[in-house]
């Protein structure tokens, strides 16, 4: 494994990582979805997690979000080992996730979704007005044109639904954020909005794992890029040290660029 150096402002290699995943293993029956992956994330940093379909990106991230605890391996937060047995644990530790499926309850309205599982209460009853008021603020920050706070999110557009999912993740003062394909369902304008948001969150010192198929998104936004292949980590590279072609080569062939043979390189470039 390489010793990482990072050129993110204010981040020095000696600092304790915000999140460390150490030697994580996850198996589904006989399929080893994640086999011994080690990753880290510093505050105010975006780490792109890339790989082909079935490379284990999402499964790895689900161990951190508590959706699927690892079979073995260790998760450290600010250097301290933590147990993340379910999504509630992760949220309590300040790890929020925006799932690729958005994970919205379609029949509920936007405020109910933003506060799902963490409802505000007054006198032992739900305080819907307070939740709506807070939801209006946080969603308004993402999308000033958002008006439908009373309709089930089923009837909202893809971008509006995305705004609800993101609002839910950022409203609770997250320290680390997992974004799984945050722009896959979005148009160009909405994608730009999400990019702005990621830069803003980064400047606030939040660490972000960005899982994406879009290599250009990843190059735009992240400091480091971790490439996964068949459940294993190929390598984590500094964005400035590699080209998109080299990263694509790692995604497709599962080897670091330095270990590629001349023939493989030739095949890759047609």
């Amino acid at each position, binding site marked *: 494994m390489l010793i990482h150096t990072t050129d993110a402002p204010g981040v020095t290699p000696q600092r304790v990582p915000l999140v460390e995943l150490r030697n994580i293993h996850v198996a589904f029956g006989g399929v080893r979805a994640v086999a011994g992956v080690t990753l880290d994330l510093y505050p105010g940093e975006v780490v792109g997690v890339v790989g082909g379909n079935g490379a284990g990106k999402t499964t790895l991230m689900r161990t951190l*979000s508590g*959706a699927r605890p690892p079979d073995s391996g260790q998760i450290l937060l600010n250097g301290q080992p933590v147990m993340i047995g*379910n*999504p*509630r644990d992760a*949220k309590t530790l300040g790890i929020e*996730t925006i*799932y690729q*499926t*958005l*994970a*919205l*309850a*379609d*029949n*509920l309205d936007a405020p*109910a979704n933003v506060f*799902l*599982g*963490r*409802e505000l*209460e007054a006198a*032992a*009853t*739900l305080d819907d*007005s*307070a939740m*709506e*008021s807070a939801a209006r603020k946080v969603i308004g920050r993402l999308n000033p044109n958002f008006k439908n706070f009373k309709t*089930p999110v089923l*009837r909202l557009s893809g971008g509006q639904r995305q705004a609800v999912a993101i609002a839910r993740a950022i409203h609770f003062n997250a320290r680390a954020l997992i974004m799984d394909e945050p722009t896959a369902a979005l148009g160009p304008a909405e994608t730009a909005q999400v990019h702005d948001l990621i830069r803003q969150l980064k400047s606030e010192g939040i660490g972000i794992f960005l899982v994406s198929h879009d290599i250009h998104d990843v190059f735009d936004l992240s400091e480091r890029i971790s490439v996964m292949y068949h459940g294993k980590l190929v390598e984590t590279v500094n964005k400035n040290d590699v080209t998109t072609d080299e990263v694509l080569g790692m995604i497709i062939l599962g080897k670091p660029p330095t270990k590629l043979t001349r023939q493989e390189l030739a095949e890759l470039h047609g």
Partner: protein
Amino acid sequence: MGASVPSEASGAGGPARSFATTVSSALAPVTGVLRSLEIDTRMLGMIAALIVIWISFNIVSGGNFLTARNLWNLSVQSASIAIMATGMVLIIVSRNIDLSVGSMLGFLGYTMAMIQAVWIPKNLGLGFEQPYAWVITLVIGIALGFAVGGLQGFIVAFGGVPSFIVTLGGLLVWRGLLFRYAQGQTIAPLDTTFQMLGGGTVGTRVGALGEWPSWILGALICLGIVGTLIASRRRKRRYGFPVRPMWAEVLVGVVACGVVIGTVWVANNYPLPPAVAEQYAQEHGIQAPPGGLFIPTGVAFPVVIMLIVTLVVTFLATRRRFGRYVYAIGGNPDAAALAGINVRRTIMLTFALMGSLAAVSAAVQTARLNAAVTSLGTQNELDVISAAVIGGTSFSGGIGTVPGAILGAVVMQSLRSGMVLLLVDSPTQDIVVGIVLVAAVGLDALFRRRVS
């Protein structure tokens, strides 16, 4: 119905499309009003359907349907199904089903009869007619219902067995247990105070509120409605949310209170049976006038119980996390789990609540019958599920309301009671109710496709 409209329009010379536009533009003010009122259109449709059913039956039966006597009986008959339908809504909303409610009701009703008519008086040797017997019976019954329902819920939620299977098993098991320990015996009579819960009469005691308490109840409900409207408007104002126009607010309040007062008025227009009234007059030294004594019955206790249950379950469903989670699970179970909701516990609780409500209904039904029989509650599951579904609860999960289920129960019972008035035989009643059930869900699905 829809197909005949365009042909008539084209017969009149105008193309069908312009007719449709005319209709929609003519309806524009109506939809505008509906939007200002912020009333669920589906709910409004059901109320309209109920009014049509009532008026039709009244015309066909020659004015026998919309009488105080018939409506009072209708309210009592609807109550026991409506009580369980409120719980069934939450079960179906969370994408489950409970087929065992009828058997649970039978089992719990029989046990409750045993408590008051055998165990307390004979086994404990305390004698009949203990003043506290009805309370103990009710409390133990509801707790047992919670446990029985909770057990089924536990198997569904933690055992991973589909609720259809678990409660199908429950349907057989609870009825079978009942048969085994009843040995075909009917438990009767029951404690006279307990009998009041069924809305019947024992001597001069009547299972209803009587005239003035009914009016007071009506006034309290009206105060509650007005208070809720005002509080909600204030809260919205404080947060700067949009509020309904004042006229809409007043209209909603007036109509809701009008319905409450009308209901009380109808209940107070149903007199006690002549024999009971005569006895009452003798006991109280009242001289009966020549036309016979008119003593208002008032709102029946089963209806009062139903109102309390409705209030409690609506509160759980809309004002508590539990209800929010039930709806979230129904909308997207994975999302609910990822949001950190304890899905299993929530599901288990919906079944436990259903068991408790089955116990409440069991109390009403046994009290009304003044006996516990082994066939008690047979096929009630079908009526309860039908009531919830006619009331707009969707089997795809996440959609359904408690007031809707109450209305659904009243619609079903209205159909049955109207057909009884018209001397329609029981198989034909079943055919009609079955068709209405399918048609209601079919129309709803069609309507929803149009909207989306």
